[in-house]
């Protein structure tokens, strides 16, 4: 059988073997001891032609309920937003997507410049001075931030708000185990970080304080009250933020954050079952040399022409090896490009409008739902595009009924916290029309 990705003909093979002075390809594998040579055929399915493959993949895809056919109110860290056509066209340029990391800057100026622009946009968004070229995703960026806080402060204790995304806290816990950090979870009070408990836990051993705003429940934390607690013992103040919210909310940088992390997924990156997304990592200039991952910097060539290179590489694993404080190697360059294209498309004005649309839609939905008997707002806190409500029936039962009406219901908060059984977290982005919101309200009215 022939394969379209394998250009070697029989004649090529013969010619190449003859240059090598051998009879068969097997001779090139003689150095694999006989006992561990694989015999027979791998038990994977038979090959498919391209038409058969697309049909098979199409059938698998059709077994999934997509946002095209269902109105989704799921968020909880991954959000359906409109992805402008230009995004897909740009990231489909194969000069971008088939390139490796830009280690040869002379033939990678396009990628390098695009990332330099991405870094700038992340700085603008977060109110920070320096951003890297991206991380795997928001939660791993958050865990890496804890490592930076420890390495900068020389201390081991990390205080993390219980209102940080539960999966991010899981990842932080295992990262902390590896790095030998102690993580103390600060409980919530009325849906936001309990400042008294935070104050009580904060001491001279504290390396850093991590909060998320809007937090996992959608509530906006008062960063102006958290910052002094984080800094009172010279700890590092780490804020995880939803980037769309920063079109409307004062950025963490203006509140004195030292590190701002998050996920750029809402900008031009499909939810795609949870990944790949695109973590961002922004810091003050003071922490510039502690940032994990790749950073692009501006320079000039021999003829004084402006150009871009990967820089400050002395931080990275391929140079520092066992002395590295992070092992990150790849980033999410193509998704960072997607985010940069979307941020460019939005522009200064579009970003603000997008944020306001999200804010208005979510508040309309919350107001309508709160009027229903059987629905109660879980918290009385300011929120952005996501909010929690308590239902009079089990969330899983309600969601099952909603699916039949082509509505994907909210995130069951009882999954992570027994105290929140019966509560659901709903996200309402610009994608939800008034009609869809009203339909959700009507369905719930019937169900509860």
């Amino acid at each position: 059988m022939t394969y379209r990705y394998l250009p070697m003909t029989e004649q090529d093979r013969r010619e190449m073997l003859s240059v090598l002075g051998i009879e068969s390809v097997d001779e090139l594998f003689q150095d694999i001891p006989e006992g561990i040579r694989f015999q027979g055929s791998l038990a994977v399915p038979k090959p498919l032609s391209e038409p058969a493959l697309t049909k098979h993949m199409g059938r698998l895809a059709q077994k999934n309920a997509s946002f095209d056919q269902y109105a989704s109110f799921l968020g909880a860290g991954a959000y359906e937003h409109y992805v402008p056509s230009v995004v897909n066209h740009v990231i489909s340029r194969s000069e971008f997507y088939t390139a490796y990391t830009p280690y040869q800057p002379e033939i990678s100026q396009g990628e390098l410049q695009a990332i330099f622009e991405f870094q700038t946009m992340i700085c603008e968004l977060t109110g920070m001075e320096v951003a890297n070229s991206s991380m795997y995703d928001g939660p791993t960026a958050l865990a890496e931030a804890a490592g930076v806080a420890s390495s900068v402060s020389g201390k081991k204790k990390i205080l993390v708000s219980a209102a940080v995304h539960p999966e991010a806290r899981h990842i932080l816990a295992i990262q902390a185990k590896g790095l030998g950090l102690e993580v103390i979870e600060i409980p919530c009070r009325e849906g936001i970080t309990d400042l008294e408990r935070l104050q009580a836990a904060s001491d001279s051993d504290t390396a850093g304080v991590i909060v998320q705003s809007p937090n996992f429940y959608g509530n906006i934390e008062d960063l102006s009250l958290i910052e002094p607690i984080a800094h009172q013992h010279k700890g590092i103040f780490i804020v995880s933020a939803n980037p769309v919210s920063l079109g409307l909310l004062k950025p963490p940088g203006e509140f004195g954050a030292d590190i701002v992390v998050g996920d750029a997924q809402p900008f031009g990156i499909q939810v795609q079952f949870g990944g790949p997304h695109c973590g961002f990592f922004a810091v003050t200039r003071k922490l510039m040399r502690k940032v994990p991952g790749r950073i692009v910097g501006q320079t000039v060539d021999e003829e004084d022409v402006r150009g871009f290179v990967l820089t400050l590489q002395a931080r990275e694993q391929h140079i520092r090896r066992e002395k590295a404080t992070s092992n990150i190697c790849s980033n999410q360059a193509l998704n960072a490009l997607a985010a940069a294209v979307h941020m460019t498309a939005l522009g200064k004005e579009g970003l603000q409008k997008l944020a306001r649309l999200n804010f208005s839609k979510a508040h309309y939905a919350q107001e309508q739902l709160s009027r229903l008997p059987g629905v109660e707002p879980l918290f009385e806190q300011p929120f952005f595009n996501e909010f929690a409500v308590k239902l009079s029936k089990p969330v899983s039962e309600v969601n099952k009924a909603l699916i039949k009406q082509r509505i994907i219901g909210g995130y069951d908060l009882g999954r992570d916290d027994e105290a929140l059984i019966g509560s659901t977290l709903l996200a309402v982005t610009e994608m939800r029309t008034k009609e869809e919101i009203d339909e959700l309200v009507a369905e719930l009215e019937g169900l509860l």
Partner: protein
Amino acid sequence: MSAEKELIFELSKPGRVAYSLPENDVPDVDPKNLLPEGMIREIPAEFPEVSELDLIRHYTELSRRNHGIDNGFYPLGSCTMKYNPKVHEDVVRYPGFAKIHPFQPGETVQGALQLMYELQQDLAEITGMDQVSLQPAAGAQGEWTGLMMIRAYHESRGETKRNKVIVPDSAHGTNPASATVAGFEAVTVTSNNEGLVSVADLKKVVGEDTAALMLTNPNTLGLFEREIKEIADIVHKAGGLLYYDGANANAILGKTRPGDMGFDVVHLNLHKTFTTPHGGGGPGSGPVGVKDVLVPFLPVPVVSIGEEGYFLNYEGPQSIGRVKAFNGNFGMLVRAYAYIRTMGPDGLRQISENAVLNANYMMKRLEKYFDVPFKQHCKHEFVLSGNRQKKQGVRTLDMAKRLLDFGVHPPTVYFPLIVEECMMIEPTETESKETLDQFIEVMGKIAKEAEENPEVIQEAPHTTLVKRLDEVRAARKPVLRWEKGNALQDK
């Protein structure tokens, strides 16, 4: 194209837009009425203001200033720059894959879960492992995940003093870095004069404090560790486990399996062996496979099958927990799955056979121009040394830059660290003999230039838009973002 390209911010003009947002069909809410004053943003983010055509021309020009596999040969050692099939880019964009949420009820994502389940099975078969987790986002994260499992395994046996991970001196930088980040101390085992792990040195290094040995096989020199069974025995007898760095798995598909070699845990780079595009640096995907002994420690959830179909299985009382949010880099899993379904068992084997034949052919034909430090058959990649050319005043870096003038991406240079003036060349199986011959011809020409006209190499590249860039300046006076007024002036 001019050498210098404006930044998108330098094209900005107030009043131009490239967005199209849905009409607001609900009552507009003024945040000032609902949020405390101090929470509202006063200074808007300075995003560029351009029209849609401005945007497209900008990024199109940037793409033209970039070299990918589709532009030309890319023999970057250890990176497996093979062709990225176009059909993968189509299927991954099907709404049923692209527009689904990780928290949707299981019954609404059965196709996605089935794909993940089958991929777990296929990767376990290919690597000879018992169970696979698709969670890790990249190779380095896979390494760290594997090491955290090894740590949990030793701790579960009360062996808390096993704090050392042995890493060959030829290893990728991520290996020792992952060991450190997982809380181990990395110790080095040296290579012998054949470029293989020194078994004698290994015997000295291994001991009661050994948690694991990390090994790439074939190693980063492209050589198969022939004594792998003995190496595995030594480590196992000492109570340690074996970690397989799958960066070089493109050499062994259907030929040998890490599980059969004695490895206990393996990661694969789907963006190398399984064609998911490198994307200019990512996203990647780094699934890990384990033998039974480590199955209890796998990250959760894995995808299982039950009476009601496929489901995310969170069972695992000894699991190390979650290493990545949601379901790993699902989009990359779709592509790798499509690739395995396209190639089938014989196709997978041919991938490695052709990759290895291509590499050996190139090495053989290049040996008259360059020093070959290890004279034996290689696997999917090989190393050359530029020592001969160094004596002529030409460094490996210079030759790499000279290759740019011929439209070829240079090999990996100065790695592995144990070979002087190293060039590490990996042709992959998707390149034709004609392409290899052209490259060999270019390399021959450069070797000749080194003898006769070294300046032309030392001053390379000559044909690129920008010339060699001042990296020292970039690091000493870091300019890491655009600021109003800084860009063109502040060079």
